[in-house]
């Protein structure tokens, strides 16, 4: 330990590598190092300060292999989190498709689909508010979904909506919008998301595009279904 120089540091690095390979914990390594340092310092005529300095360098070198492993673990953890969020997204998309396919041609179905779109989009992306707007026979229909923090149980939802929109910052990174379009390119409406604590990410934007396509298809299919099965037909 006390023989200074790169040769001794290289030995420390090899020692750390072997310790990692044998599955020794960092605590084991620290304990062994401490014992070695204690016995060195007890020797007569030893320059304790020099020994402690050399021991510090030796220890730093021996734990560098653990740093490689720690960074590897962090990389794997991030990959696992990403995988989990993709799984969640797939599950929610699948729920959304299942829910919309169950909506029939009963009165209010379009509003129900819009509500489902708003809820799923907001939950999936983790936004504070989602607003779905649709143009229907010259009218604009709107459905919103709010995070639990924004909904007043006794309050008027329309007022809550207006107040939530007014209070939200509209900086580009704090709102996202995607158009809902039919297969032949006609504009059906829009899907807007507001307010995410840590800001919207590139993955959120990609998810919104995907959701808007699924939502457009659901709206178009429902309208087609309603046209096909109206009593006049």
């Amino acid at each position, binding site marked *: 330990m006390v023989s200074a120089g*790169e040769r001794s540091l290289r030995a420390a690095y090899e020692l750390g590598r072997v310790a990692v390979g044998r599955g020794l914990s960092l605590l084991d390594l620290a304990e062994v190092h401490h014992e070695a340092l204690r016995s060195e310092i007890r020797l007569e005529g030893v320059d304790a300060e020099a020994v402690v300095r050399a021991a510090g360098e030796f220890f730093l*070198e021996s734990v560098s292999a653990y740093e490689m492993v720690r960074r590897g673990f962090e990389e*794997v953890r991030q990959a696992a989190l990403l995988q989990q969020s993709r799984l969640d997204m797939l599950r929610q998309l699948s729920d959304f498709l299942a829910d919309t396919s169950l909506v029939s041609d009963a009165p209010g179905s379009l509003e129900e689909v819009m509500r489902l779109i708003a809820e799923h989009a907001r939950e999936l992306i983790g936004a504070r508010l989602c607003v779905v707007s649709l143009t229907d026979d010259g009218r604009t229909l709107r459905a919103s979904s709010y995070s639990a923090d924004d909904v007043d149980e006794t309050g008027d939802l329309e007022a809550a909506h207006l107040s939530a929109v007014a209070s939200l910052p509209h900086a580009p990174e704090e709102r996202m919008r995607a158009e809902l379009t039919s297969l032949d390119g006609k504009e059906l409406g829009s899907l807007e998301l507001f307010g995410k604590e840590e800001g919207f990410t590139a993955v959120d934007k990609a998810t919104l595009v995907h959701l808007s396509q699924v939502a457009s298809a659901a709206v178009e299919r429902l309208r087609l279904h309603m046209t096909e099965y109206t009593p006049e037909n």
Partner: protein
Amino acid sequence: MGDDIIVSIHSDQDMVVARAQSRSLADSLGFSRTEATLIATAVSEIARNILMHAGRGEISMRPLREDVRCGLIVVAQDSGPGIRDVSRAVESGFASTGGLGLGLPGARRLMDEFEIESEPSEGTTVTMTKWRMRDDLERIRERRVRRVVDSGP
């Protein structure tokens, strides 16, 4: 290219030389002791890779100086059998690293930039860089020194 430090890698002893040179260069560029240790570790891993797979090769290192940052670039070259699947070689779990994240994947994680070029039977080149951001005081000092040098005796 005058600043290049070149170390031939033929034996374990050369690994010690490469480590010492990288540490010394890192110190001269103002890297902390911890960062210098990580750089020396990354250099050890690529030197070990040369010895294990090619038997011999060369490691060169050079300082990089920019206005807001400075760094150290390390290039390791060998004429060994090459790596068939480069992307797999830098992932943990690759056979020769025993799946512990040491070796090339470990070196990649310790450095800021890491690139491998390899062709089967034609050898491998690993290029890796570590950066350090320079603070304002450091840059002001350097400008002052430059001004003094430019104004001459």
